């Protein structure tokens, strides 16, 4: 007689506390580093798998901040982090940047604070870009 057994599938779930980050206009002399209005961004990680499973959260920008033909380099945006396993960094369009790393089953919450370096060299405009956050467990 065959005794059926359940094998739980590995699962990874990523939740962000906001869908958008906004940096308001500011005088570069008064505000050399602009805080995102939505700071801090809540990040929730849930990974279910083996105790030796490695999980990594990365972020990669789709390009520079863009307003028509004007650009602000995406590396002008940095973040700080709070929460076990979460790390600070600088956005990049070239390579995924590490946001956090954990071992085994994970059920973690962290906060990210985003900052835009201000400058008189930026052309006036409304800039935007998309960031892809990817959680992989393997």
């Amino acid at each position, binding site marked *: 007689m065959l005794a059926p057994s359940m094998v739980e599938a590995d699962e990874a779930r990523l939740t962000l506390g906001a869908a958008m980050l906004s940096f308001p206009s500011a005088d570069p002399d008064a505000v050399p580093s602009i805080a995102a209005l939505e700071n801090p961004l809540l990040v929730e990680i849930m990974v279910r798998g083996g105790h030796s499973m490695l999980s990594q959260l990365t972020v990669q920008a789709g390009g520079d901040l863009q307003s028509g033909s004007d650009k602000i380099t995406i590396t002008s*945006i940095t973040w700080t982090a709070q929460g076990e396993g979460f790390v600070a960094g600088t956005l990049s369009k070239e390579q995924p940047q590490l946001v956090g790393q954990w071992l085994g089953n994970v059920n973690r919450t962290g906060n990210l604070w985003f900052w835009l370096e201000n400058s008189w060299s930026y052309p006036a405009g409304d800039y935007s870009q998309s960031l892809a956050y990817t959680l992989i467990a393997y």
Partner: protein
Amino acid sequence: MKRRTVVAGMVTVACLLLLAAAGWAASDQQTLTVRATVADKAKLTLGVATVNFPDADPDAAPLISATENPVSVTVKVHTGSAAVVTLTVQANGDLSSGGDSIAITNVTWTASGSGFLAGTMDTSPQAAGSWTGSGRRDGAFSYFLANDWGYATGDYSQTVVYTLTAP
């Protein structure tokens, strides 16, 4: 006997498939949109609020240099990348001391720094600088008064207004 062997083989294959699935990576992805606003703004800073021309012998000093020369000038602008930024200066009148006057056109200036322009004071706006797009520009003006034995003695003054425009 043969039938039991075939069934056992099928069960073994199923178990192997399930074990292989347990080792696959699990993943999830979320998108975050980033927006940044850079509004038009303009800021002009002059190094001093007053320039003074001391008394001098017109034969020895036909051109009197202001004691504060050079005067630093800083222009800071957020504007369109193709927008023309201009700095102008306009005097509110001639140098005046009671009923006496010295034509303001006797005051000239030289300029240093990219985009900054030399000129002659006047009661109409005079170009003092021109640039394109956003940025910080640092320069300096040095002021000179043409000296003349024809000036009546007195303490003269006048206000000049610098205007920075970024469309």
